[in-house]
């Protein structure tokens, strides 16, 4: 028992020591940046765009900004942190998502122009070369969550495979399918696993980025949704900050030729930069 308490005490000492060191380091950093009159910025992101931030970070350093990028692991986390002003900007969620987030929470997040990029949602197939080739009773794997399901069903309607009637619920779902001449069978999957089913079904509707993650060609789609460009993923800031110099500088860097080259080389067409 005595030994147990000693170990516990030791563990507590070490933790508190580490904590103190951690805190003091942070404060000394803040002092240093203040002395040089540099602007410290915190940008939140998720793993998808994590590689992009260091490219911007480098360029921003020369302009007198020190960017610290924080990688979150949930879609709502960076937006929540930005709403609480714990970070200065985020680069992950698309604009319609941010607008919904604003309406559900009391935040005023804005997406200043020029926009950076968008991820195409498209039909991919390893078995068929075009939409016309899709046979009777073909099986489609779609992302099962309501927003993606709605967009995927609209794509199926756009290519003429199904027609949708009136919306029954908040979103279009399979119960709203009115005509289905080819008797397309729809498999609802978890959005992270949809692309994995590509070998088992006739076609999938996924984001190009998922194809890249699965080591498949993101540009090999048989139909890409033209609506995708209306879902810009760009720098998001709090309202009132959109005209600040750092925001203008940040976005200017994303428009440079060297940035575009790096971006396109890395994302191989799974994310498209706005012209």
């Amino acid at each position, binding site marked *: 028992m005595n030994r147990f308490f000693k170990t516990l005490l030791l563990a507590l000492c070490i933790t508190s020591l580490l904590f103190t060191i951690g805190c003091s380091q942070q404060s000394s950093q803040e002092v240093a940046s203040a002395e040089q009159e540099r602007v410290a910025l915190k940008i939140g992101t998720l793993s998808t765009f994590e590689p992009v931030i260091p490219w911007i970070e480098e360029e921003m350093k020369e302009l007198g900004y020190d960017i610290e990028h924080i990688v979150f692991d949930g879609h709502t986390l960076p937006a929540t942190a930005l709403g609480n002003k714990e970070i200065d900007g985020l680069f992950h969620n698309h604009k319609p998502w941010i607008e919904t987030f604003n309406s559900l929470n009391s935040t005023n997040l804005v997406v200043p122009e020029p926009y950076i990029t968008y991820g195409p949602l498209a039909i991919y197939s390893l078995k068929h070369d075009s939409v016309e080739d899709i046979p009777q009773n073909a099986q489609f794997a779609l992302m*099962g*969550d309501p927003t993606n399901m709605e967009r995927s069903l609209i794509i199926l309607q756009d290519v003429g495979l199904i027609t949708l009637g009136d919306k029954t619920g*908040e979103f279009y779902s399979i119960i709203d399918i009115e005509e289905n001449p080819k008797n397309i069978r729809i498999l609802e*999957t*978890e959005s992270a*696993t949809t692309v*994995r*089913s590509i070998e088992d079904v006739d076609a999938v509707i996924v984001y190009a980025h998922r194809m890249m993650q699965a080591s498949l060609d993101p540009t090999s789609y048989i139909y890409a949704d033209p609506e995708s460009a209306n879902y810009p993923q760009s720098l998001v800031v709090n309202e009132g900050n959109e005209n600040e110099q750092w925001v203008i500088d940040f976005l200017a860097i994303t428009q440079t030729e060297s940035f575009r080259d790096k971006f396109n080389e890395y994302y191989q067409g799974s994310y498209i930069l706005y012209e």
Partner: protein
Amino acid sequence: MDAEFWSVFFRYFDRVIGPSIFATLRMISAIMIIGTLFGFIVAVLLILYGPYGLDHRPRLYKILDFLVNSIRSFPVLILIVAMSPVTKQVMGTTIGERAAILPLAIAATAFIARLLENSFIEVDKQLIEAAQSFGATSIQIVFRVIVKESIPSMISTLTLTAITFLSATTIAGAVGGGGLGAVALNYGYQSFNNVILYTCVLILFIMVWFIQFIGNLLYKRSQ
């Protein structure tokens, strides 16, 4: 609660909830049949080869014990995705109901094996010794004494497993298995449709209640 509400509700029921009830029932039945069969065999081997076993074989026991422990250490969702190459080989697909059944049945096998082993161990040692003194063989002792004595506890074990794996089937939506869990999440929670969400919960509640009812009934009969 006007007529329009009900017509929408029945449309959901007809095209979404109804099929998912059958999907859930098919999955849980398949899982329980496969899991009980193999779980029982593994449990008998564990009790035969185990440290207090009639035919103690430490090495074989350790291998079996290790396998059961390894499978039991996977959270169900992780087991489903981690096993997908095996699922592809065995079932020919990595998606849909069939793809969900294999990993869940394997998880159920390990779960049932461990619980049944525990019930078998509880059987009175004196009974076994008595049977041995009559010259009964190991196989006779296992089936005529140990299994027979632990039938009530086997029934409660299987009831418990059925309810545990009923909730595990709600995870099958991850691989496109459908079922009530996927409907509750996609058509209910994420679509802001509480009617669908709680209808699914209510159906699951009825299923759990029914399984427990049958379990209790059989338990009483077996005593």
